[in-house]
């Protein structure tokens, strides 16, 4: 009630009329969640959208075959069960017979087949295509079974299939060419309206096979300024919000009726070095940089300590203890010694690129790194640029050093094959490669025994931090803030808002 009263008090004051007070008798929409975020989705095609902001919306509307739970284990979504054949070259899914699209049609094996064929078609330009190249053909023997025939055993395929970039869309919509303009999925919500950069209206999908949705719908407002989001939470105009800026997030607990949910994420902050050119060709120089940087110090200074120091693998199932990795404790003497051995005792100059506001802490990260590297004689110039310009430069591999926030994946192979295999699409951005990395990645890809896989990737972590092509720094948190009225939200390390399907809103 406070919410409605507040709104109308303003109008009443504004026009100085009693009319505003009579307008108070608005029915309370009890079970609609009012939500805010600062960045809106950029499109509706789940196979083409890769921005976090788009994926967070699409995850509420579409479903892939599988999903990851809050511990990042694979869980059923459209598929109720799945199984690799003995030789690892056939992958069979049984579909949930209750799964339905929001237009009322049952999800059929032909929809699954059509969706994957669309992803694999180069003309679609699907972002995740490279993850599915081992699929040779797809069979649909009956109304509930889909069989993927593979060219080689491919364990990471399962996690790739749990991404919203592998969402199952209706075959009819593919044929009609309406994917991207209409959103017909089998997820917990349907998209009723979308006003880009302004608002979205979601309604609970009564056809959803995954259970009962706790709210009637979600009204999402796009509030570009995060301090304004905090103000809206405070005044009860919004019940739930996504927050990107750690500085704003740390202010949430100051308010008695608000709760801050903090969830470690898979994406990682990293300093990328260009090992193809200049001084950083030298292993010892790269190692010196690794030893000179106090990761915890950068985290504390740039991110208010909101996060934790990480090695290359950020998913809990594969992460190793950072203290076992090369030079994870700052050692300036060793760093200076290494610089001397490499013949750079007088240091050198380099430029580091960083994107303005993405992440919000990029500039301060670069500054702390700049001052730490100055201690071993490396003079860093910081080049700040708009995100698109940064991405352009970064994709060309055109930098000495880059401060980056890279997205994580639940599987180490899917996360890193683009950088650390010789024919990876982004190998030229990584600026480094060697046979050991290549071999380890391939072994990890085909190994089906989880314990052996873990050992392979631990070896990968150890080797790559020693070669120091990149200096992995830390992972941050994803933040959501909710009012006391909102119950039952579970955050997810992938940053997914799928947990909203279980949320209820009280009075």
């Amino acid at each position, binding site marked *: 009630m406070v919410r409605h009263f*507040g*709104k109308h*008090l*303003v*109008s009443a004051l*504004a*026009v100085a009329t009693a*009319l*505003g007070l009579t*307008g108070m008798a608005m029915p309370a929409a009890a079970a609609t969640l009012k939500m*805010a975020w600062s960045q809106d989705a*950029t*499109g509706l095609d789940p196979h*083409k*959208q*890769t*921005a976090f902001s788009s994926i967070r919306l699409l995850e509420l509307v579409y479903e892939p075959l599988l999903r990851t739970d809050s511990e990042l284990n694979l869980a059923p979504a459209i598929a109720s069960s799945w199984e690799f054949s003995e030789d690892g070259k056939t992958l069979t899914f049984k579909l949930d017979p209750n799964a339905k699209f929001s237009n009322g049609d049952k999800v059929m094996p032909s929809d699954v087949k059509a969706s994957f064929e669309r992803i694999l078609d*180069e*003309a*679609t*330009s*699907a*972002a995740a*295509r*490279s993850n599915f190249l081992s699929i040779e053909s797809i069979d649909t023997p009956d109304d509930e079974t889909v069989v993927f025939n593979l060219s080689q055993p491919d364990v990471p395929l399962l996690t790739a299939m749990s991404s919203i970039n592998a969402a199952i869309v209706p075959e009819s919509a593919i044929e009609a060419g309406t994917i*991207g*303009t209409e959103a017909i999925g089998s997820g917990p919500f349907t998209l009723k309206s979308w*006003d*880009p*950069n*302004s*608002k979205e209206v979601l309604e609970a999908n009564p056809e959803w096979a995954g259970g009962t949705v706790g709210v009637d719908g979600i*009204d999402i*407002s*796009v*509030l*570009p*300024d995060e*301090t*304004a989001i905090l*103000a*809206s939470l*405070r*005044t*009860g*105009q*919004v019940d739930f919000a996504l927050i990107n800026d750690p500085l704003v997030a740390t202010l949430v607990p100051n308010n008695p009726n608000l709760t801050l949910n903090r969830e470690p994420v898979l994406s990682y902050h990293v300093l990328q070095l260009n090992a193809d050119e200049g001084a950083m060709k030298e292993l010892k120089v790269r190692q010196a940089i690794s030893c000179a940087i106090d990761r915890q110090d950068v985290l504390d200074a740039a991110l208010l300590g909101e996060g934790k120091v990480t090695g290359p693998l950020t998913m809990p199932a594969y992460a190793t203890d950072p203290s076992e990795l090369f030079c994870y404790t700052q050692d300036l003497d060793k760093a200076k010694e290494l610089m001397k051995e490499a013949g750079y005792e007088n240091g050198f100059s380099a430029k580091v690129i960083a994107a303005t506001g993405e992440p919000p802490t990029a500039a301060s990260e670069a500054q702390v790194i700049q001052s730490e590297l100055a201690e071993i004689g490396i003079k860093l110039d910081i080049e700040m640029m708009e*995100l*698109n*310009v940064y*991405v*352009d*430069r*970064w*994709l060309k591999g055109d930098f000495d050093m880059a401060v980056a926030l*890279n997205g994580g994946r639940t599987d180490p192979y899917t996360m890193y094959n*683009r950088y650390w295999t010789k024919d990876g*699409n*982004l190998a030229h*951005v990584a600026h480094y490669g060697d046979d050991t990395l290549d071999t380890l990645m391939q072994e990890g890809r085909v190994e089906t025994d989880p314990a052996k896989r873990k050992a392979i990737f631990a070896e990968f972590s150890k080797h790559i931090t020693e070669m120091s092509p990149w200096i992995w720094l830390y992972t941050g948190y994803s933040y959501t803030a909710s009012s006391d009225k909102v119950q039952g939200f579970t955050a997810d390390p992938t940053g997914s808002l799928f947990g909203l399907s279980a949320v209820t809103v009280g009075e």
Partner: protein
Amino acid sequence: MNYLTRRLVTFPLVMLGVSVLVFISIRLVPGDAITAMLGTEAGLLTPAQRASLETYFGMDQSWFTQYWQWLGGALHGNLGISVTYGKPVLEVILRVFPLTLELALLSMIVALAVGLPAGIYAATHAEKPSDLIVRIVAMIGQSTPSFVVALLAIYALSVWFGILPAMGSFTPLWQDPLQNLAQMILPALTLGFAFAAAVTRISRSAMLDILSDDYVRTARAKGVPARKVIWHHALPNALIPVVTVSGVEFGYLLGGAVIVEQVFALPGLGRTVLDAILQRDYPLVQGSVLFIALNFMIVNLLVDLAYAALDPRIRLGGN
């Protein structure tokens, strides 16, 4: 040709110039719609995938061909399809423009209602303490950035009073006027604050000039009451610089007050253009900049016509 026709003839020429400039400058900025949409994932596209996206966005053609096609469409009233909205550019612009127009009009009402009386008051009380106070307030108003005022207003309302205008879900005037005013009043006051300060300063100095003119002295000498001298004799002439300033400011606001729209989460023209630039939505950037240029020219024309109406000595164009 009379003045009006001659001015109108220059419109298409200016628009053509603006369109070429925008067309080139947006393409000179590094990055394109594909990287804007896919971010770093754009690096995962195979050459064939990239080629098919380039065809889709029309980026596989030469700039000249692209411009020629765009111009051909624009002459038929077709400004192209916005990449982010998936809708015709004109439709997107016309949907967001009413908000910006309303915001600009409200700000101007605030500015004139506050600034003009304040300026006249200060001029007629020149060098008295009250004049000094008005001048100091106007100085603060002009030198405080609008986003500071906006954030202070939001902070004060939400922290001290626990209320806020509904943000994020904009209500058009014709749907619910009260709700709409509740949303618009703060942004309008924020923009009006600086605008009013400018009007105050200019009307004060214009009024002071005119009050020392011979014809005012004559009127006074003839025993015309002070109030009548100010409102009937001096004001119409003092209005000319005020009209100029208001016109320029209003034209600027029609382009969208980007920061204020951003802070108050108003989906107006300013935010649309900003987002379009960040998304490298070329058709939308081109269309909206053209639209803003047209608005500016129309406002300028109206200002010139207003001069003539206010002061018979000004004859436009001469015969």
